[in-house]
């Protein structure tokens, strides 16, 4: 079973890696302006999908597995974007030191702020993470010493960046591969952690924290570890993002909206499952980008206002889909699939145990 899933995963990664060589026309799947699979526009959208899939995976460790509703992931995403951008653009550091500085900053921030936030639990934890992330946003907006560029943003420009990574259009496929690589690495890390003994402790924290304490396990350390891991993954996503997009703007990379988007991706896909988070993120980013393009098409303008206005707002459609999912599909996409699998298994079990009856306990 798991070997088959491993083969499917490997197949998907290989397919993803080959996409830049596929010149297929997909008129309905892709917006008409960029409907060739390996066009720059499509590759950029797919790369964004992969980046947020990785970030969502990391966030799923703290939210889905450990059960802590943190509203802080954007802070670490923005750390990846801005520290990397600043060390390269302003200070002209070489690539490797810039990367090290970026992850070191994120690590320190996550450990210190995580330790403070985890002093409180439940809703208060959520609030504190939100407040820290907001403070970080205000700091970036403030443009201290002209470092962040404030509202106008900060474009990535560095002669020290290897040529194949620079933001030129011809490099899009390289940046696409970097984004795919980031997703693969995040998946591997999250897979290792969640399948390990630590991962089981995290799930136990979500299910019943007090029972763990009775068993003599200190949940705090594990919670901090989960928080830090998901923060570092978000930082990696930030680095891949600034390489791909080339400009850091606070409203796009540091505002609470980014956190909410990540949260929505994980919930849509199914919190607490790895491929659920990945699926949710890819669907979300794809819809967000695609819906914008659809709304810009000329045929759209002829629709009556009551249809045109809501349909032209990705934010409305995604928000509405999200509400419906939370109410009617609580486990997300993954939940539906898992339930179906369980039902099939139960039917097989029932069939197998049909003769010696009355020993099977029926679930309500």
């Amino acid at each position, binding site marked *: 079973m798991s070997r088959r899933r491993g083969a499917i995963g490997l197949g998907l990664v290989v397919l993803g890696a080959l996409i830049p060589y596929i010149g297929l026309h997909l008129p309905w799947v892709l917006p008409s302006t960029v409907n060739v699979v390996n066009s720059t526009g499509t590759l950029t959208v797919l790369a964004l999908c992969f980046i947020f899939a990785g970030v969502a995976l990391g966030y799923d460790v703290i939210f889905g597995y450990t059960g802590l509703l943190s509203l802080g992931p954007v802070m670490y995403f923005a750390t990846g974007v801005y520290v990397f951008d600043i060390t390269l653009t302003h200070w002209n550091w070489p690539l490797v030191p810039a990367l090290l500085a970026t992850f070191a900053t994120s690590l320190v921030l996550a450990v210190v702020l995580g330790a403070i936030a985890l002093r409180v639990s439940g809703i208060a934890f959520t609030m504190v993470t939100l407040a820290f992330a907001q403070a970080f946003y205000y700091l970036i907006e403030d443009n201290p010493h002209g470092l962040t560029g404030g509202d106008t943003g900060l474009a990535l420009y560095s002669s020290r960046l290897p040529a194949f990574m620079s933001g030129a259009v011809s490099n899009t496929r390289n940046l696409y591969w970097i984004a795919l690589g980031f997703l693969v690495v995040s998946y591997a890390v999250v897979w290792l952690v969640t399948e390990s003994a630590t991962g089981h402790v995290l799930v136990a924290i979500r*299910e*019943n924290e007090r*029972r763990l304490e009775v068993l003599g396990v200190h949940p705090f350390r594990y919670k901090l570890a989960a928080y830090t891991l998901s923060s570092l993954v978000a930082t990696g996503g930030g680095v891949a993002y600034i390489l791909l997009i080339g400009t850091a703007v606070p409203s796009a990379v540091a505002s609470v909206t980014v956190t909410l988007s990540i949260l929505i991706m994980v919930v849509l896909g199914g919190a607490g499952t790895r491929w659920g988070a990945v699926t949710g993120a890819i669907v979300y980013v794809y819809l967000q980008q695609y819906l914008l393009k659809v709304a810009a098409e000329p045929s759209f303008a002829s629709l009556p206002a009551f249809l045109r206005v809501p349909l032209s707002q990705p934010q409305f459609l995604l928000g509405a889909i999200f509400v419906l999912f939370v109410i009617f599909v609580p486990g997300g996409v993954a939940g539906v699939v898992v339930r179906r699998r369980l039902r099939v298994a139960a039917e097989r079990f029932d069939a197998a145990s049909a003769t010696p009856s009355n020993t099977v306990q029926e679930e*309500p």
Partner: protein
Amino acid sequence: MTSAVSITDLHVTIAGSHVLQGVSIEVPVGGVTALLGRNGVGKTTTLRALLGLVPSTGAISVLGTDVRGWPTHRIVRLGVGYVPEDRDVFAGLTVAENLRLAERIDEPRYDDVYAIFPELAERTRQRAGTLSGGQQQMVSIARALLNGWPLLLVDEPSKGLAPRLVSELADTLERVASLATVLLVEQNLAVVRRLAERIVVLDHGEVVHAGDAVELADPELARRFLGVTGAR
């Protein structure tokens, strides 16, 4: 109606643990039925499930009505007074406000309540959180008595009370039991021996014994089921 409460095959799962595993209890009308067992065997959970405060499966009938899936407030309005473990008075509300919230009939029986607890009549404007433990227990019982309801669920009323107060409490419960059917969860065997006519013993989420209260005189039974030797 033969039973005040009839529970059949009740299952409750809380945070992953199977707390009640097929409990069946019949509480006949009138008198006191005591629900016994060590700490953590599911006595409080049984009462809470009966009131719909925790999700459960199985059949529950209260005062002759099948209440499966009912919301708590509707079950209570059938005529159930509830005195929870730890009393659960509203600490920020005054005594009068606590009682006012419990009023469910047009003419609540304040005279009866104040006759049993004259002390409360003097403290109506005091915040319940500033009362002593015994006084809070009075408020809690008073709330359950105010409507003259036929069924009372009383959860460990003697818990945390001084010995002198415990015997006063037993006097009160004796008066109460002459007015209504009482399902009593209690650890204090002296109180149980004095009040209860029937006992039901729970262990590990199952009923392990049901019978007449006089059996409690047998110290072996008390030790085996309750982990106690004699009265505490």
